[in-house]
């Protein structure tokens, strides 16, 4: 479904167990085609991730994206 909302923001500090739910929520917006899940740090032995959605190809040359 197309939504006339802003694209989802990147979220930091997402615990490992919640990454799936966050990704699922981001994918409710069908414009989101890429999601980067990057290990951010570890707090009390629990890994935390930065989850970044993209609606354009982040690997394309910058001149084609900017």
């Amino acid at each position: 479904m197309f939504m006339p909302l802003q694209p989802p923001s990147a979220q930091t500090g997402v615990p490992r167990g919640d990454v799936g739910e966050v990704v699922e929520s981001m994918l409710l917006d069908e414009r989101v085609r890429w999601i980067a899940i990057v290990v951010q740090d570890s707090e009390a032995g629990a890994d935390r991730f930065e989850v970044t959605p993209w609606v354009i190809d982040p690997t394309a040359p910058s001149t084609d994206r900017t």
Partner: protein
Amino acid sequence: MIRRIGVLAALVALGGCATSKMSADQLSRVAKDWSLGIRASQVIPVYPLTEDLQPGDVFLVQASIEDQINVYLEKGFLPLENLVVRLPVSGYATFYQGYPRVEDGAKAPPRRWQFPDETGEADFSHAPLAAFPSYNFSVSRSGGLSVAVPVQAVPVGLNLLDSASADGTITFKDAYTYALPARALYDGIHQWSAQNKDYLAQFAPREEVVDGKTRERQFFLRVVNRVYLVKSVDVTLFTERASSGGLSAGVPQKVELLNLANAKETIDNFAAVNEILARAATSPSPAPASPSKPDAENAPAVAPVAVGGTLRLTMATSRSVSLTETFKRPLVIGYLASDFRILKDGNLGASAPTLNLLEGRPAYDGQVIAYVPCDANCRTIRAWLKADSRHVSELAAWLEKSGGAIAIADLETGPDALLRQRAVTELIKP
């Protein structure tokens, strides 16, 4: 000297021929390369350049955001078509409080700068200044003149260099900008839309089938809130191969444009070139084969180009040539705008910056939010969304109307707990 000038005239004329023979592909490449340079400055490019674009101009956008993104990436710019209305905006005097020569009404910007009085020349000296970085490009005549900029100085300079290829630099010498705050335009567009609901209702969202999939087609009003103008453009071309300074084009007739040992000849040569540029631009027919020696006193100081401006040779060496192209009045090269989605019954949705939509970025640049563990309201929202697939669009519609059009993911685990509470009490459990 007569034969030299004949060669010059022919070369200038060739510049025009080369340009007119561009293929459609090459022309589209021109537009994209130029636009990429402007886009690098976070401005939406205008192509072709125009004087007739200002804050308050409203365009109807019929393509989906996805299609617009594709066009934007493919062409480099968005065609400005379907101009709906020019809002009778005011607020310049308040916004530019303390700026001289800024007022509302009939002389609101840019009119007072364009036409200071009945007969006066344009005077943008009091307009807010802007600056763009220099823009480098490469140009080659092989297979056509796929010049990356819509200014005449490039093909002319290439011919003056007598080179099939060159590298160049474009500098926007006199750039200006002016704007109205988005808040003022928000009031203007809503007032206009309230008076034109019948017209807007025909652009209400509708379902359409694309590639076997049903999707909702959206229409937007794009409201320009800032424009960038340029008065003159400096073009410098460099070539690896040294010419005679340099005009030969297969004709064994060398012209030393810059000969420091003979200052008078240099001055005469520059005057001759500028006089020929003037003649080539004002005459619809090719320049004469053997024009007489220009009269330095009577020759125009600078040369007009097709858009009513001037093109002037400022420097030339054996490997480079510099020209300055000045438009008669500053032309808009780019703009910023906000998009308003047209809702059912002709109402308007929340606004979003056009540039961010086109580049798929959140409405606020570089927004990264700290994850907030899913609270009770978050869990309620998630369960409600999973209970019925239609709830997603219902929540999206509520967010657009009442929640600042933020994404569902941002609502669920973002920092705005109050908004989550409202979503539950107003939408899910009213």
